[in-house]
Structure formats: structure tokens, C-alpha cells
């Protein structure tokens, strides 16, 4: 065991260029939303679709950061003890992210810009000319009050666990001992059970119900893989950028190696779930199922293939080698590609459900997409870095801290 001289009370200072840029991002986002809402009906729908995309992405990242913390506690992992403050800062923003997503879906339902496939006049009324027997059959589950209750209950329960798991870690800094760790362990176990059972339903609600006739039981796991791997990539990005700014000197190549393995492994897992969903539908070739891929092949072909290139081929080829996983710059590049890749992934999950014929229907890639994405990136940076700057960058009384500081693969 080597000796080391790290400043364990080091604190991140959130000032200067990053702060200004993140605020600029938020302003750009707000301006873009205002611009989108001033336009015609199609422009409204496109704004809401993008808000749903980024709101969902933001909420999923904060949820999965809690999931990361819970996994580390349940596995009693030692390697991650010194980097836990980064996912903690992300988990701490879950209430904000949850509120934003609830407002977006609520307003989307209220203004009929989102989910109009199952929420419109007369869909469930047998005497109405718009009667849709499939939607009527699903109305027990897909109705506005129950949908909103589910949104609030699911994200509320995740946020409660996120709050406690981060709070005990801060208490641990002051008091030490094993009490906080043991409590975190117990609550993490409960959280994982709740999270595992509810995230598929969360994904069904937010994304799959955009095309309410179609369904896939793989969809929940497919979304889980997406949110989990993008969160891992974001954790890696934040840590590497902090290191480049001169913080977290205790993070060594072995920590990056572990994160790289995580990103590599779960990119393959994402591909496996994505492909399992695709292959079954392709092989069975039943029209009520193939309609989903029919839309994506005909009007979103570029996005469909870009999705596989960014989320499967890039991490597969670039992170396969051990040296690449340990290289700061390469891991940063791949993580950024994966984060953008999962934006593309969500894009081709959401857009074809709203604009079936692609650009002919008014979808596309332009100011609205870029502006709203910039707004949420700014919001994420601002909230996460402010949360990070409030506490020391390392949980100094974590029982496995020494193991993490001496981590070597």
C-alpha cells in the first residue's frame, strides 16, 4: 500500500466560464422554447416532442445516478468510494428533473401536443366516430389521472431514496462510523427492487404510449439500458473534466478502466436488448408489430442506422482495447459520442410516434432540437455543478475509501 497525500476536504468551485456558459445554455433553451411556441401547430408539437426528449433524458440520468449509488452500496463496492460525490450530485437533482418531466407531460396532455394517440375526444366512447377499440381496451391503464399519478409516485419514490442516500453520505462526513453506510445499504436494497419493477412501466408511460397501438415487452429494458449507459458515460465525462480542471487527483487510470468497462459492457447490453426487440418483430413479421419499424425505416432511416453506429459500433471498436479504456482522452471522446448517441436513440423512439412521415410531417433536425438540447445541457451542468460545489469532492469517512484511493487493476 503506497502512501498518498490527497487533499480530502477539496471542494469544487463553481465559477467563471463554465457557470456563464451553462447559464447561456439555459437562456438559449428558454428562447428556443418561446420561439417554438410562437409558431404554428406543427411547431408546437415539435417543441413538446423535444421537451419530452430532453426532459426524459434529464430525469433518466438523475434516476440512474441513484441507481449507480444503490448498486455500489449493495455490491459493497470499494473502487467507487472516492468518486461517489459525482453521482450523488446528479441524484440530488432528481426532484428538479422529475418536476420538469411532470410539467412537460402534464402540459403536453393538457394542450394535446403529446400522447394525443390515446388522449383525445371520443377515443373511448363507442358511439363516437373516433371510437378506437384498442385504445378503449387500454383505457383502464392509459388514462390521464392514473398516468399522472404514476409519474408522481414513481419519480417521487426515486427522489425520496436519492435524497436519503445522499444525505447519509453527507452525515457520514461529519460523524464517521458505519451507521450511515449500513442505512444506505438497507435502503439501496429496497430502492433496487422498486426501481427494477417500475422503470419499465415508466418507459412505457413516457415513450411507448406515444404510439399506443403498438407494444413491446422489451421496451422497458431497452430504455433501462439506454438511460443506464448514458448515465455511466455522463459520470465518466464529469469526472474526466473535473480531473482536467485540476480536481480529484486521486482518480487514477484504474477508476477510468472500471468506468470504461461499464460503458463498454452496457453498450453491448443496450445493443442486445435493442436487437432482441428488433429481431423478434422482424422474424415474426406481424403487421401490428412491424408498423413500429416500418415508420423508422421509411422516414427515419438515417437516424435508425446512426443509432447503431454511435451506440454499438463506436464503443465496441474504441473501448475494446484495455489501453483505450485507461486513456483519459479516448474515454472522454467515446463517452461524449455515447451521450449524443443516446440522444439519437431517444429521438428515433419519440419522433416517429408524433411525426409519422418524418420531414414531410414537420419533424427534422434544426434550431428547435439543438436549442432545447443546449438548454437542458446548460440546466444539467448548472444544477449538478452547484450541487457538487456545496460539499467536499470525496466522502472522507466512507468505510472503503482507502481501497478506492489505492485502487489498482
Amino acid at each position, binding site marked *: 500500500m503506497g502512501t498518498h497525500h490527497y487533499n480530502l476536504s477539496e471542494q469544487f468551485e463553481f465559477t467563471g466560464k463554465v457557470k456563464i456558459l451553462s447559464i447561456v445554455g439555459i437562456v438559449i433553451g428558454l428562447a428556443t422554447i418561446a420561439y417554438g411556441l410562437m409558431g404554428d401547430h406543427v411547431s408546437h408539437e415539435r417543441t413538446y416532442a423535444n421537451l419530452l426528449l430532453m426532459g426524459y433524458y434529464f430525469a433518466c440520468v438523475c434516476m440512474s445516478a441513484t441507481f449507480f449509488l444503490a448498486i455500489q452500496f449493495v455490491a459493497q463496492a470499494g473502487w467507487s468510494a472516492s468518486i461517489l460525490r459525482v453521482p450523488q450530485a446528479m441524484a440530488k437533482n432528481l426532484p428538479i428533473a422529475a418536476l420538469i418531466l411532470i410539467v412537460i407531460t402534464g402540459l403536453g396532455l393538457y394542450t394535446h401536443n403529446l400522447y394525443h394517440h390515446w388522449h383525445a375526444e371520443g377515443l373511448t366512447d363507442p358511439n363516437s366516430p373516433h371510437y378506437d377499440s384498442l385504445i378503449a381496451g387500454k383505457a383502464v391503464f392509459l388514462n390521464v389521472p392514473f398516468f399522472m399519478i404514476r409519474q408522481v409516485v414513481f419519480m417521487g419514490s426515486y427522489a425520496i431514496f436519492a435524497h436519503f442516500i445522499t444525505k447519509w453520505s453527507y452525515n457520514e462526513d461529519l460523524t464517521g462510523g458505519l451507521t450511515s453506510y449500513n442505512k444506505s445499504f438497507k435502503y439501496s436494497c429496497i430502492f433496487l427492487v422498486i426501481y427494477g419493477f417500475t422503470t419499465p412501466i415508466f418507459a412505457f408511460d413516457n415513450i411507448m404510449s406515444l404510439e399506443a397501438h403498438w407494444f413491446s415487452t422489451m421496451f422497458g429494458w431497452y430504455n433501462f439500458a439506454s438511460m443506464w449507459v448514458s448515465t455511466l458515460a455522463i459520470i465518466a465525462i464529469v469526472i474526466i473534466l473535473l480531473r482536467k480542471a485540476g480536481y480529484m487527483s486521486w482518480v487514477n487510470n484504474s477508476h477510468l478502466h472500471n468506468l470504461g468497462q461499464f460503458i463498454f459492457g452496457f453498450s453491448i447490453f443496450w445493443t442486445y436488448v435493442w*436487437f432482441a426487440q428488433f*429481431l423478434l418483430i*422482424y*422474424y415474426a*413479421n406481424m403487421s401490428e408489430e412491424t408498423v413500429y419499424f416500418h415508420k423508422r425505416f421509411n422516414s427515419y432511416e438515417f437516424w435508425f442506422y446512426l443509432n447503431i453506429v454511435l451506440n454499438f459500433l463506436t464503443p465496441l471498436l474504441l473501448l*475494446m482495447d484495455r489501453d483505450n479504456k485507461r486513456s483519459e482522452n479516448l474515454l472522454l471522446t467515446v463517452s461524449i459520442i455515447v451521450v449524443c448517441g443516446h440522444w439519437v436513440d431517444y429521438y428515433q423512439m419519440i419522433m416517429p410516434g408524433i411525426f409519422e412521415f418524418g420531414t414531410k410531417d414537420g419533424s427534422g433536425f434544426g434550431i428547435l432540437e439543438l436549442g432545447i438540447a443546449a438548454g437542458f445541457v446548460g440546466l444539467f451542468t448548472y444544477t449538478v455543478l452547484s450541487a457538487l460545489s456545496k460539499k467536499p469532492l470525496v466522502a472522507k469517512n466512507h468505510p472503503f475509501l482507502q481501497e478506492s484511493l489505492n485502487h*489498482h487493476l
Partner: protein
Amino acid sequence: MSNIKYILGSFGDPDEMLTGIKKLQDNNISIYDVYTPMPIHGIEAKLGVKRSRLDIAAFFFGITGTITMLTGVYLATAVDWPVNIGGKTHFAFPDFVPITFELTILFCAFGLVGSYYASTHLFPGRAPRVMDLRATDDRFVIAIDAKQNAEHDKIDELLKSAGALEVKHNERKYISYE
């Protein structure tokens, strides 16, 4: 000159063995290899062992499996005996992704097991190559090539001072061929 081939220092404790390695290295005595009953973290770096090339071998075994399966399935379904299955093209690539994946894994696994046997000379019916039998049980053994390092007394002394329980001068490299 004696016909001693290898000097073996046998330690009862891994920390004492690490001290022994350090003492030998400080005196510029090259270590042939170290045998331990359990993995010792970081010892490869200390001994300057080159990185294993097993991962490169794994990649090529795997890619052989991929190519074999895709070629085989192409010849079978598109060239030799084309059958219309569900109106799909004869060589419907997505259908064969799972089996291609399986064959990649199979070739990779068998190839690596074969490489392992080849590099360690572990074949059925062949006595394993062991320099000191107790290295497989409770002793931590440093092996030094006696032909390359002439100062045998100094080596003995260094090993003893580091805490070696026993120092052997072997005239044969492997003792387990009997």
C-alpha cells in the same frame, strides 16, 4: 563449475518473498520466475512481466468464428439450398446474428483454452511442469537461473536474510517428470 540449473528460495510468507525480490533486484540478480499458491496483487509490475497477448489472440479467435459462421450460413442458405422462409431474402442477416454471436464466443473460448494448454504444456497424460511442488500448496518460491547468475553464495545469503525457510540448488529445471 557445478551443474546447478536453478536456485529456489522458498518462503512461508508473501511479504518476506517480496522483500527477497527487492533485495535480489537491488543486487542486479535477474529473477527467472516466481511461483505462488495464490495471486499476489501487483507482482507482475514488480517483476517486469510483459503484458499478456491473450486478448489479441481472443480477438482473432473470435473473428474467425464470425467469419466461419457467416460464410457457412451464406453458402447453405443462399448458394447451396435457397429456401423461401417467411418471404425474406435468402441471406437474411438479422436472423443469423444470434448464431454468429454464439459461434464467435465458442471459437474464442475453445481457442483460448487451447492457447492456455499450449503455453503451459498442460496436456492430458503429461506431467505438469513444476519447479517446486510446495509452491502449489503453502510456499512462495523465487526461482533464479543459476547459469546466468554466478554468485551462488551471495544469492543464498540474500534469500536467507530476506526470510527464506529453505534454499534449494536444483540440477533439473522441473522436478515433476517422475
